[in-house]
């Protein structure tokens, strides 16, 4: 495992509500790094601030103070076209509700990030087919999202997130809407992508099973990182047990 950080987070704060009115501090100074090729999980109960944190990291929202860099680029003050281009080139998203465009076929959904950059049509087709066969959805490429199962949809979303070879892949409860078999398949897929293509992954979840696939887990509580778990050489089953134990005490 490489030790150069792909993402650094320094003293991140987020306060909701205007000064003078009733304010709520969702993040109270978050610090951590993600190394290149690492598979990191962020866990926490509802309202712990984990989704807020993900939104800051994935440039979907701006922090009140603090700094985030991805691939050595500070991202917290990106705006307009530079923000759009950064999202298109450097990061990929997978959401709980898939966020596929239901007006387009799976193929068109996956190809979208490439057509957005006006990639030559000749290059698009092989790229989409390659990523689709890798994710096992080659046969569904001409289907519309409403003709696919949840697991298939989520793999199409993953293919769309990966086609640009992003520096960082963000997952927001990606298994939240899946049955256990599909969830297991998707997580296996994440592990393979992480190992084989060295894509750094940051997963936000409240589900211990999903988290057990990560190499490192940050526990967030009331806007702060409370605890950190490293999988090291533990088997996934043992790590799962360790997570359960930690959660048992952490939430008290």
């Amino acid at each position, binding site marked *: 495992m490489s030790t150069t950080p792909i993402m650094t987070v320094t003293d991140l704060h987020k306060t909701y509500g205007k000064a003078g009115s009733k304010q709520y501090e969702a993040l109270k100074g978050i610090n951590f790094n993600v190394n290149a090729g690492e598979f990191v999980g962020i866990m926490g109960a509802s309202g712990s601030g984990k989704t807020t944190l993900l939104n800051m990291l994935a440039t*979907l929202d701006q922090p009140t103070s603090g700094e985030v860099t991805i691939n050595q680029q500070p991202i917290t003050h990106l705006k*307009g*076209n530079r923000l*759009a*281009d*950064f*999202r*298109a*080139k450097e*990061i990929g*998203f997978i959401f709980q509700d898939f*966020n596929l*465009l*239901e*007006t*387009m076929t799976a193929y*068109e959904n996956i*190809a*979208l*990030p490439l*057509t*957005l950059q*006006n*990639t030559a*049509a000749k290059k*698009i087709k092989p790229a989409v087919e390659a990523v689709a066969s890798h994710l096992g959805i080659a046969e569904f490429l001409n289907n*519309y999202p*409403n003709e696919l199962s949840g697991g298939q949809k989520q793999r199409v979303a993953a293919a*769309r997130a990966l086609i640009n070879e992003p520096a960082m892949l963000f997952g927001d409860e990606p298994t939240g809407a899946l049955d256990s078999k599909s969830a297991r398949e998707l997580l296996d897929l994440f592990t393979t992508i992480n190992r084989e293509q060295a894509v750094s992954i940051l997963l936000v979840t409240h589900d211990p099973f999903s988290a057990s696939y990560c190499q490192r887990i940050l526990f967030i509580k009331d806007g702060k990182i409370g605890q950190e778990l490293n999988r090291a050489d533990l088997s996934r089953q043992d790590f799962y047990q360790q997570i359960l134990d930690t959660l048992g005490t952490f939430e008290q």
Partner: protein
Amino acid sequence: MLTKLAMTGFQKRWRDYLVLFSGLIMSSAIFYMFEALATNKAFLKQNTSISMVGMIFQFGSVLLTIITLVYIGYANSFLLSMRKRDYGLFMLVGARKGKIGQLIWLETLLVGITATIIGIALGSLLTMGLSQVLINSLGLTLHHLAAWYFPAALTTLLLYVGLFIIAGFFNLIALTKTPALKLLHSNDQPNRPKLKPVRQLVEVIIGLLSISIGYWSMANLDKLQLAGIGIALVTIVLGTYLLFNAIFVWLIVLLKRLPFANRGLNGFTLSQLSFRIRNYTKILAIVAMLFALALGAITVGMGFHRQVPLMANGTSAYDMGIVNTTSQQQAQIKALKPTTETTYHFKIGKKAVYYRASEFNAQPFATMSPVGKTQLKFKLKRLDAQKLTKSYERYQFGQLQGSAQQQLATTMVSEQQYQSLTQPEQRLTVFVTKDVVANQAALKKLAASQQKRDHALQGQVLGGRYSGYQMVNGMYSGLEFMGFFLGIAFLAMLASCLMFKILSGAAADQHRYVMLAKIGTRTSELNNALRKEIAVLFILPGIVGVVHVLFGLKMFSFIMIGSPYTGIWLPFLIFAGLYLIYYLITVQIYRRIVLQ
């Protein structure tokens, strides 16, 4: 409690309700505007010499009713889609179906009646404003036009309330028969654009056939009479719809295969269009029809406007004739820079007015005589004394004289005879300017000064092109007014139809645009995408509408001087300008909804 809940839903979605309300208000206002003319028998009788106009209005009424039906259908499904979630939620918390049904029915009716009443008020204001603007800018004379016309208001109210009662029942059934969970998660399902070559080929053939029949019957209106208009309306509406249905699907499937679809958001835009393809073909066919009607009406209105001076020029070769001009009048005539000014001398006897034949031989009198079958073209003839006495058009000379002379016979006498008459010699000055319309104001003053000296010199007795212009303008004002008025009303209707349809889908599109932004689409690209999508929806019916108008104008060739096609670029340009404004407004509102 439920009523209170319903009201909070109302407040939360005021923006959507604003779209709904403004759409319905516009629609009922325009319907009222139309009915204000169509049901006003006195107005129609007074202002048109063509009996067919009344019937054309009847057809127009039927067509507008059909369009209103579809329009309210859209409005209702928009309302339904807005409320589905809320009502689903009420059911989930245990509200009784009967109670909910009552609420739905009440809400639909309340929305409908409020919008209709405001619409009628707005409609009568618009009728007043628009007719004032048209009357002033076109110099029209109209009688019996009432901005507030009770039968029109009643017709509008009855139709709309009736339709909303039906819509209310429809909503009641649709909502109470559907399980609560389905209401909560009712998402649009995409229409997979399918190519069914045989079916689409048949559609194209039938479509083209029925449009051809329509065009043919419009071109042969002189044989078919009223039936022609009916046939044309039915066949063209049907043909337009079938063509759109067949070609639109084809076009999108075809475009998606081109490399063009792989650039930027083009693929997304095409998918957006194909997503609602079924809904759009209906609205596009309607919009194409409205477009044709609106553009046609304005073009014909302008045609009549152009017609007036042409017809006036056919009534006489001179603008005016004045007996014994004063020096002041002489100066006024000179200021008009007449192209021809001739003075004939005469003496009045007991039974006849005696003119010097030699004067007419030296300066022949010009007349306009109609030529051709239609009697709508004129030839200028210059007549000497002998020819003038024999000519059928000698009345054109007679009318230019003073009122006293017009009672007597005109006699040409030789120089010798003339000198032997003992009566005092008088003068008749006739003149013609370059443009009777441009010189209207000065000619009016001149006529007034002469009328003060010769009180009987009113109306047609004044003679010449100026009084001809007054007469023809009075005759055609009604037609011109109807053309412009209906053109603008139809344009407003079509634009609000299209706008409403596009905007009612905006809420569903919002999350797609948010999603695109999340995966890194530049705002400028999003803007371009939505501009293109809406442009396609505006341009397609526009093209079809223009084709319809080009063929439809043939209908008017038998009541117009020259071709009804001369100078059509001007109404087309004006129309394109107005259409563009509607497009820009739609883009602006749509952007505000989806991009926020």
